[in-house]
């Protein structure tokens, strides 16, 4: 088959699946959207209503007895959107909660530009990827296990996931502060070369990798490198060409620790911690990246 034909079919199927959607629209162009659900794909667009949609590809049985009734749950949430979610507007806040925690369809949301977003999921079992795209307002994500994908968001953003990973690709007109933390997952960010940022990356047991092209001016440890005039020297380190390229300095261990405390079991804890503080293009947006047990990757956006 010709590639054009394959492309045609692929597009055709795509449009089919796109058309087979259940939608719920809410006219609101400001405020804050609070999502307390298992996962979602949120994309900003130029419009005045929030469009919630779920794929309608499953052939579920329609319960005839339930016609004219709404699903309720113990928290008092009812399926007022017809999608299995409770959508309630309370002043500036738009709250979205699942009616059935266990059977949540994958929700896609189109969000007007001025609405802020908060995503919270403390459920240990039902976790799905959270994808946020093209948002230009404040983002607040706090989850236990979801993987988080951030594409082309402006910020400011506060992202926390305990077990999931974060993959982010930032836009040029970044707004701070940006804080991305994970305990067990990796943090992978792609920055535009021209971005101005104060970088603060830290990993307790993982490593920090950064791209050469970003030319990070690393602040070396203050207590060691203080010059005689008391000015901290700032070095620009150009690291090797090989793939993910550099690991910078050990975390500052206190003077007491250095001379006291014999090692236990042949290692001294704390020395594993890696941190990288520096400025990109002279500094600007505050960018905090942290992963306790996994690696941090700082790469160039292409």
């Amino acid at each position, binding site marked *: 088959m010709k590639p054009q034909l394959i492309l045609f079919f692929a597009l055709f199927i795509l449009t089919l699946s796109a058309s087979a959607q259940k939608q719920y629209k809410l006219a609101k162009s400001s405020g804050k959207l609070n999502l307390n659900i298992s996962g979602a794909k949120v994309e900003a667009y130029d419009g005045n209503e929030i469009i919630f949609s779920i794929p309608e590809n499953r052939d579920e049985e329609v319960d005839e007895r339930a016609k004219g009734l709404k699903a309720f749950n113990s928290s008092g949430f009812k399926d007022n959107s017809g999608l299995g979610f409770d959508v309630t507007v309370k002043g500036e806040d738009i709250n979205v909660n699942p009616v059935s925690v266990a059977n949540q369809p994958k929700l896609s949301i189109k969000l007007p530009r001025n609405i802020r977003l908060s995503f919270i999921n403390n459920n240990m079992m039902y976790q799905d990827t959270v994808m946020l795209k093209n948002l230009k307002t*404040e983002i607040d994500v*706090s989850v236990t296990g979801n993987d988080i994908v951030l594409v082309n968001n402006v*910020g400011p953003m506060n992202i926390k996931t305990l077990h999931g990973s974060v993959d982010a690709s930032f836009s040029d007109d970044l707004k701070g502060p940006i804080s991305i933390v994970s305990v067990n997952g990796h943090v992978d960010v792609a920055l535009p070369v021209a971005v101005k940022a104060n970088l603060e990356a830290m990993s307790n047991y993982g490593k920090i990798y950064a791209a050469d092209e970003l030319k990070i001016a690393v602040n070396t440890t203050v*207590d060691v490198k203080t010059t*005689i*005039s008391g000015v901290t020297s700032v070095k620009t380190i150009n690291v090797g060409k090989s793939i993910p390229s550099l690991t910078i300095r050990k975390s500052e261990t206190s003077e007491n620790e250095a001379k006291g405390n014999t090692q236990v079991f042949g290692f001294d804890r704390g020395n594993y911690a890696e941190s990288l503080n520096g400025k990109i293009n002279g500094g600007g947006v505050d960018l905090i990246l*942290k992963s306790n047990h996994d690696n941090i990757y700082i790469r160039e956006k292409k």
Partner: protein
Amino acid sequence: MNDPIKDFVEQHREDFDHLEAPKFDLAGLKAKIAQKPAIKKHRVLSIKPAQWIAAAAVLLVSAMGFWFFNKTEQAKSPEQHLVINRDRPKEGIAKPDVKVATHHKQDIQLAKHQAALPVQKNKFKKENQPVEQLDPMLVKQLSDSTSSSNRLAAVLAIKKSDFISYDLLDRLSGTIQHDSNSNVRLAALSVLEKYQQDAHVSNLLITALNHQDDPMVQLSLVNLLGKMQNIKIEERLYALVNDPSTMEAVKDEAYQILLKENKF
């Protein structure tokens, strides 16, 4: 009652009384009296100067001590206390550098002069600080419940400025315990980490650990407190590892510290 000793004394009374009372010697007594004050006077005179010198020395030392401490007390208004604490290690570090790097006397003097510069700079800062108050907007921003990013920005601004006060540290400690956003809590923790040498701050950190319910912050707190010296957190660490709801990573960290201290 028959007392043999009394009888014996009665019988031999004459033997006991063989000593005559000496004749009253008025001249000798007068001479003695005349002599004694002379000796006393001499003694007093010889002792007094020493005492005076000692007293003067004690007074001088205590006066100098009082003056010195009084001066440092003046500088230690609550808002500047921490800055002073931070300055000390700098001096300590700068001096050995000088000794190692230079040999000639002149060089040493020059280097010392140069090394003294940053300290002077700090002094200048100290004097200026009451004027250089922190933006009150920042404090307001710190308690902005509508936007976590605003709060984070405020915390980061505090972190960057060299200004700090106990009031501000207490506020940040409150943030660590009660803020709804973990990222903000972590940032506040990183500010306190900067001033961890201070006893008040280490107390705040311990309190924060005792009330912490966010696993992410627990992890960082345990990690930080584990590295600090002379901190008693074993009880809390036991409580954490024995709590089934504690996150595994936090338990691992707590175990590691207990192992390091050989307390487990």
